[in-house]
């Protein structure tokens, strides 16, 4: 049978060997981000590409092809972790000692709103045409709605066109399809790391495409104004290195807002990256899947589709100073491909709806040619069109509430981290905080990172560790704060007043944590008499307080969440 040579490889490997990585990603709990840490190819750490899973994939099976064995290996290592969690899922009443998932980036805070909206009568329409073979790009009515939706929310200067839209079953499929139609087997995309690790698998399974990491540092050096800052120099260097290694790079993947950093690129930065790509004739895939999950207004999010001429020539790199204001809004529209989905912004990762916007007809057509394999049900397409078209509900009900809940949860977790003296990044976007637990590692190795991660799991809380995002520094963790297992009471929103019936004394565990001033209570959740209930954070705290190697130094605790970190002149707080 197919086994990973866990024992064998333990011996020869010094730092994190396949053995530890396998444990790590098999269990780090994020249903989506389990893949990329299994890079057995430690000799070429800069290629986080799948490198050579063949090194660990062995098989006595006569049933699978060689590539089948590798493909299966992706599943096995991933599934094992998921299984651990699913076998012992936390439930406040039924299994209060179960595992709490703070690893999967899902927004479970607004299910009440969504289920109500999705149950309204306009969603229930069944029409014969929806049951038959569709236009593989997506039904026209949906593509039209998507174009309108993106025009509005991305603040596109001109209306976007339905013919530039391709609809498929999620961004995973989109990454796969783009990799296939833009690259030959063995070619690569650049990606700033740490990054959403599942992309490795998406571009690799069918496409055989690899990722070349543009490693970002936590330390603020040179012209950087913030930790993990992406700069054109770093892009240039990574590209050069890849060229030197003989790897043909065909494109650049940008995630904005970034996952796991929560970073938001300014229009000037975006333009710089796009100009860089244009210079090297690289495609740019901009994944904007968190674009409406920016809960801090001051964060100032800009979609790539909103760009209008060079935004801020002063901030631009010298190389693009020549750009005239009359220039096309995108430096290279034919090579710029935007991705969006409802998974994150509408908290519906199980709905499998993703969309591509590209002005390049060849690319749209080629991706659409693959949609036979990545289509979604006509009925769901209809529902999505209804949802995206309901601007009133989105603007007046969903988004304000979603943002308030995200913000409250974020504020709470950030407060807890601050109390623990743990440095972190979190810039007011996304569902997660990028946490620096380096001081809890006795040695700065991924092995230690894994051990810490394991300790969390032993204490029944699942996190994602930096290795899973190809972070090059051991000790970083991503902490998701939008799980439904916690409840926060919010004085100022006062659901206690509007829904007094939900405020029941409960025998459930109390968080027992430090003071809390602002939080919210989704109406469907019971309240704990004003006490915030966030058992996951409590467990994190338990682990860290028992484990901390270095005495806490509250002075070192500087958070970077929210606010305008990009305002140049300010001394950027180091990530500590």
């Amino acid at each position: 049978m197919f086994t990973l040579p866990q024992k064998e490889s333990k011996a020869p490997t010094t730092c994190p060997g396949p053995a530890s990585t396998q444990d790590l990603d098999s269990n780090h709990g994020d249903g989506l981000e389990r893949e990329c840490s299994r890079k057995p190819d430690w000799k070429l750490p800069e290629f986080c590409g799948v490198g050579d899973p063949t090194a660990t994939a062995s098989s006595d099976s006569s049933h699978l092809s060689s590539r089948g064995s590798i493909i299966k290996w992706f599943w096995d290592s991933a599934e094992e972790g998921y299984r651990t969690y699913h076998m012992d899922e936390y439930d406040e009443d039924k299994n209060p000692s179960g595992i709490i998932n703070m690893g999967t980036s899902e927004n479970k805070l607004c299910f009440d709103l969504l289920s109500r909206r999705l149950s309204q009568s306009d969603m229930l329409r069944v029409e014969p045409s929806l049951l038959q073979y569709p236009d593989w790009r997506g039904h026209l009515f949906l593509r039209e709605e998507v174009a309108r939706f993106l025009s509005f929310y991305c603040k596109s200067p001109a209306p976007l066109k339905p013919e530039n839209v391709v609809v498929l079953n999620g961004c995973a499929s989109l990454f796969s399809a783009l990799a296939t139609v833009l690259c030959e087997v063995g070619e690569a995309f650049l990606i700033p790391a740490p990054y959403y690790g599942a992309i490795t698998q998406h571009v690799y399974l069918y496409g055989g495409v690899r990722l070349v990491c543009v490693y970002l540092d936590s330390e603020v050096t040179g012209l950087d104004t913030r930790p993990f800052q992406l700069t054109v120099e770093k892009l240039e260097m990574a590209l050069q290195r890849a060229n030197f290694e003989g790897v043909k790079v065909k494109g650049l993947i940008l995630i904005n807002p970034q996952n796991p950093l929560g970073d938001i690129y300014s229009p000037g930065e975006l333009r710089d990256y796009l100009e860089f790509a244009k210079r090297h004739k690289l495609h740019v895939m901009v994944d904007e899947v968190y674009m409406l999950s920016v809960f801090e207004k001051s964060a100032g999010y800009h979609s790539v589709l909103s760009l209008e001429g060079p935004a801020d020539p002063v901030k631009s790199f010298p190389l693009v100073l020549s750009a005239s204001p009359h220039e096309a809004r995108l430096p290279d529209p034919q090579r710029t491909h935007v991705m969006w989905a409802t998974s994150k912004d509408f908290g519906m990762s199980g709905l499998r709806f993703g969309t591509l916007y590209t002005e390049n007809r060849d690319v749209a057509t080629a991706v659409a040619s693959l949609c036979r394999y990545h289509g979604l049900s006509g009925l769901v397409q209809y529902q999505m069109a209804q949802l995206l078209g309901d601007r009133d509900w989105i603007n007046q009900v969903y988004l304000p509430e979603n943002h308030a809940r995200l913000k409250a949860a974020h504020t709470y977790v950030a407060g807890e981290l601050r109390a623990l003296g743990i440095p972190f990044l979190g810039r007011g976007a996304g569902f997660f905080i990028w946490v620096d637990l380096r001081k809890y590692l006795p040695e700065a190795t991924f092995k230690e990172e894994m051990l810490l991660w394991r300790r969390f799991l032993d204490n029944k809380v699942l996190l994602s560790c930096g290795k899973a995002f190809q972070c090059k520094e051991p000790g970083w963790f991503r902490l998701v704060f939008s799980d439904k297992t916690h409840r926060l009471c919010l004085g100022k929103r006062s659901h206690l007043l509007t829904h007094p019936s939900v405020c029941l004394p409960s025998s459930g565990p109390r968080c027992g944590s430090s003071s809390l001033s602002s939080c919210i209570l989704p109406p469907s959740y019971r309240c704990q008499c004003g006490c915030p209930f966030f058992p996951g954070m409590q467990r994190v705290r338990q682990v860290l307080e028992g484990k901390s190697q270095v005495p806490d130094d509250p002075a070192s605790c500087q958070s970077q969440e929210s606010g305008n970190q990009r305002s140049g002149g300010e001394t950027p707080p180091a990530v500590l």
Partner: protein
Amino acid sequence: MSGNRDKGSSQPAEAKTKTQSMSDRLGMFRMPSARMRGQGLRNQRIHTHLMEMMLHLKQTIEKNLMHLTTRHLQQDLVLEEERHSQAASEQEALLGRLMYQLVNLLQSGAVGGLGLQPSCPSLDVRRDVRGGQWAQSSRQPDWPVHQLSDLEATFVSQHLSSRGIDISALYHSSFQDYKIYQRDKYHEDKNTMGFINLGLSENKLCLDLMTERLSQSDMNYIEDDLLQYPDWRGQPFLREEVAQFLTYYCKVPDQLDPENVVVLNGCSSVFSTLAMVLCDPGEAFLIPAPFYGGFAFSACLYSKVELILVHLDSEVTDANPHPFQLTVDKLEQALLEARITGKKVRGLILTNPQNPLGDVYSRDSLQKYLEFAKRYHLHVIIDEIYMLSVFDEFITFHSVLSMESLPDPNRTHVIWGTSKDFGISGFRFGVLYTHNREVASAVSSFGYLHGISGIAQHKLCRLLQDREWIDKVYLPTYRSRLQIAHGYMTKKLEALGIPFLNRGSGLYIWMNLKMYLDPCTFEEELLLHRRFLDNKLILSRGRTYMCKEPGWFRITFADKPLLLKQAMHRFYQVLSEQKQDLIMKQLENAQRE
């Protein structure tokens, strides 16, 4: 994988060699440096070829232009127009051919990297008919023919990879008719001049029942699990229901295990993933021909797997008691021939009930095919997507899952979906059932890329659960409507004296229009197909099923009576025209002689 790997080996050196050989065999997953440089060299070679071809292209264009100009000068005005158009089409063909070769050459860079032999495209439709083998990756002779008529798709995009161009071109040519149809669909009130599509195997007989059932309140249920990341094999509740459903309708002796079920967004996805995990690029499946063209499309689109055709004959002989009968002898022979040419055959694809023939395999034949596969360690992918669409009560469908004991359960993989049997092709739902956990796991890795919406999974579960409705309402109505539509269609065909297979299953009839072709070639078949298109009727021709005899067409009858009537009217008109032309042609020939 040839199972030569010691499990306990802990020697790094040994492991390394194995790795090496594995990635060699793998082809697809290559490491950079050395091999990339190799690729560079190859590209250089291609580059030179490319330059030569460009030069040739240029010369040809110049020559043709010259020719045209001189003709213009010389020509008498009467014949001018006719010849002009002739010359233009000649030119178009020539240019098209060259462009296509260019694309192929470019693409051979990628194909070469996959360890496949780049071969020149064959534009001669007849050429490949004789060969039992059919190399994939768009060098399939069928597609270029289309491409000639539309250069747009063949054009080399500067933005796409060569396989991207390939995929676009392949899709464009394979689904050209479908695209035309999408733009101009027939509608009984709104667009009576639109295209009638009887080329697509789509069940439109029970849309009323399905619409009604799907509108019932139990369908509209939202639960948080449905909106969150699912089990990528399919939600447990759905896999459980599928296992029960198949146990019941496939008449399985023991209860099927939900753990053996993987649910993806359509049967094409299931097949595509199976091809990925069972074969390495360049390896092959056996498949009896004629067969559903989607297999060919899927096999070459992502997985680069070859299909080796087991050609079936229409003619009845001692060795071939029924038209197009699949026998173990034919399988043996095709396998042997493939092995002689060095092809690695990994499996056999069967469709039961068969598409386009409508054949339903007897239990006995099934057993024989499976035993054959077992003898040669071949996987069997058996597609039972029409299993509930058997409408002749004298015919019994035997699912492979109903067998008391499967000859080789670990190599038998069953595909089913709701597209045909429930007429909901827009739902995107396909099922794999396999006893082989390895295969199930490997296919599950693709769950991300072929996932179904939780909301749709819930609806499907409710649908499959409603045994009462299926047995008492849906299936009886569906089958009687199939019978009526089939009866209508066969009567019309009989009246026209057109031979066809009458098999009592499926949504289509396989008919022989050979008598309308003179000479009986695939070119003429294509011309007849075009003539149908010109009359706004889409059928699918035998060539797209890799039938080795020209003249066969598949016509779908699972549509509303009114539409069928209109379609048959057009059908009749086309054939009359065609007949007229044939007579004219024969007269001309006779006069010439």
